[in-house]
């Protein structure tokens, strides 16, 4: 994509960082300080010794802005690697959501039926409520939440996106 392209695109960026105090603040501070968007953010240690963490950021901007975000991340001292999963090739992105639905009667039955088609699991239930656990691509979760809106949707907790490149590629 040429640098002069002004269309906005979404980008899933994975960053491998030292698992040290303040590293998340550095990354988040970079985004807020320079006015970049964070649409989703996940972070957790990913190696056995717990020395490295992987941060997945979903952001959006013009080609020039996305390149700038990657360059800015790359120059942070505790950053080992930066990968633009959206640009570098096909990738899988998954998110986990917990969705609480409160209701009785027909709506409760309908919620359970839809949850079944989405392969959502019921992880908590009372006579008035369900908590569904749902894993999938962010747009699948969006669709599920949208359907629950009329069926007593009460609360949502989403993990943010975890993502990996497809096939043998690693960052």
């Amino acid at each position, binding site marked *: 994509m040429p*640098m002069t392209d002004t269309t906005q695109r979404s980008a899933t960026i994975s960053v491998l960082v030292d698992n040290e105090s*303040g590293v998340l*603040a550095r990354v988040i501070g970079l985004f807020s300080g320079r006015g970049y968007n964070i649409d989703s953010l996940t972070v957790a240690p990913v190696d056995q010794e717990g020395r490295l963490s992987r941060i997945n950021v979903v952001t959006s901007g013009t080609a020039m802005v996305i*390149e*700038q975000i990657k*360059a800015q991340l790359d*120059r942070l*001292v*505790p950053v080992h690697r930066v990968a633009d999963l959206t640009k570098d090739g096909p990738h899988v992105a998954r998110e986990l959501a917990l969705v609480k639905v409160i209701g009785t009667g027909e709506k409760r039955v309908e919620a359970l039926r839809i949850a079944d088609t989405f392969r959502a699991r019921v992880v908590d239930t009372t006579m008035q409520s369900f908590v569904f656990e749902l894993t999938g691509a962010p747009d699948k979760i969006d669709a599920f939440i949208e359907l629950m809106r009329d069926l007593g949707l009460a609360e949502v907790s989403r993990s943010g996106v975890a993502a990996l490149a497809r096939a043998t590629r690693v960052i």
Partner: protein
Amino acid sequence: MSAAQSQAGQAQSGAEILLRALKDQGVEVVFGYPGGAVLPIYDALFNQNAIRHILVRHEQAAVHAAEGYARSTGKVGCVLVTSGPGATNAVTGLVDALMDSIPIVCLTGQVPTHLIGNDAFQEADTTGITRPATKHNYLVKRPEDLARVVHEAFYVARSGRPGPVVIDLPKDILIGPAPYTEATVQHASYRPRTEPDPDQIARAVALLKQAKRPMVYTGGGVINAGPEAAAALTAFVRATGFPITQTLMGLGAYPASDPQFLGMLGMHGTYEANLAMHGCDVMLAIGARFDDRVTGRLNAFSPDSRKIHIDIDGSSINKNVPVEVPIIADAGRALEALLAAWNADPRQTDKPALTAWWRQIDQWREKQSLRFTQDPTKGAIIKPQHAIRRLYEISRELGRDTYITTEVGQHQMWAAQHFPFEKPNRWMTSGGLGTMGYGLPAAMGVQIAHPDALVIDIAGEASILMNIQEMGTLAQYRLPVKVFILNNQYMGMVRQWQELLHGSRYSESYSTALPDFIKLADSFHAKGLRAESVDQLDDVIREMLACPTAVIADIAVDQAENCFPMIPSGAAHNEMLLGPEHGATSAGVTDAGLALV
């Protein structure tokens, strides 16, 4: 190591280990100010002679002094301040160093680890506050990390794109025993790239060889890359015969007296430099970052050129201006590679086109955009440009190695325009942050590094008051810094913008109730001088330069003088305003331009 082994058994305190690491990093001078949290370090300093401590009068000045030291030597500047207010006072200096890529290591005291987060006396979240103000920062929580962190901090500060690094040191870490570790060579994640990609160098040379209207544009990155980089730049530019312009930060990397040098570019750059940037067909940018003060309106910036950009910081490339050939490398290494590839390339340059381009540049030069008229009659008011010209000419007669620092404002721009530099590391000014109060402490740091050199702070009467307390430091260490104040009794650049852009409503820009600078100098054990008319100027300059002590020379200059040429905010390079010398008056600036600052 042998010294350490001989002391084995007798554990050293964190403070002693800290000083040992500083010494191993080549630190000779620390600029600092004591306080509760850093008393263990001051105690350790008291017991040794290897590291000299310069006591400043305000922590901001400690950082600027370290910047002056760093810029004039190429070494890392070292700062030591206490916790809380010591650290917060240093923040302006840290951001200044960050914006101008100056290598600094700033040691800040911190309350003991068990009190962190308790709102203890003189506690501040220093790593939190300085995170966006530094290239990197550390909080040392374990004694075994201390020496490693110090070594790493110096490596991070000086390598890649240099910058300030803070090490926050809790008091218990300084008091308790700590082990020493030697510096390791490699960093696990931070590995700046210094060698250029040969393919990109080849592409750059191919572009440059076929250029009809080439332009070289260099910045502070060439200075930071060391004198070898400036030498490589000079050799390359001479080999090509191309015109060169420089940013405020880049001055001195190419000799200003050379006919290929078109002067500074940007908001107050020369007519020929800006028009050549606007009209060029191939641009070679080296160690410069296409700052808004350089580019003017971005969508009208050098519209027809194909651009090559060499920078050690990948995030500087394609940040503001898209370029065709990006080269991530040390400026010196890249210039050496460029020169070698240029000489090895059999293709000839387009001689007739280059001759025509130079003819065009010479026509622009004939405008003499920096021209001013000084009334020579006795009693005439001094033009600020004339004062700087005379300062340059008279100081050159002395033949001494001369270092110039500035404060921020009109005097800074006039100094950049009228005080030419032949060598790098002789010009220290706050470029990116534009910090008033930078010049005096920076001059202090330069004089510490170069005790026998002539060090002059070209100042304004408003800026100088922002760190005037450092006159005390000059007195204590007998630093013969010359403070040359262009006194127009206004915050001149604010006044100029108010005249040109805000209908001459001079809101709060008049310097009322100024001190008597002669008495002020006197009370700080320095010499005070004053020139009120043009016939007194040369004598005052000569007396100032001959004086063995610090001097404040208060030069009364024309209050109404504006700094031209000027590219108003939101305007393009070819829309620059010339001064009254060229029959110009203030031009209309759009609201959009006003908002651009």
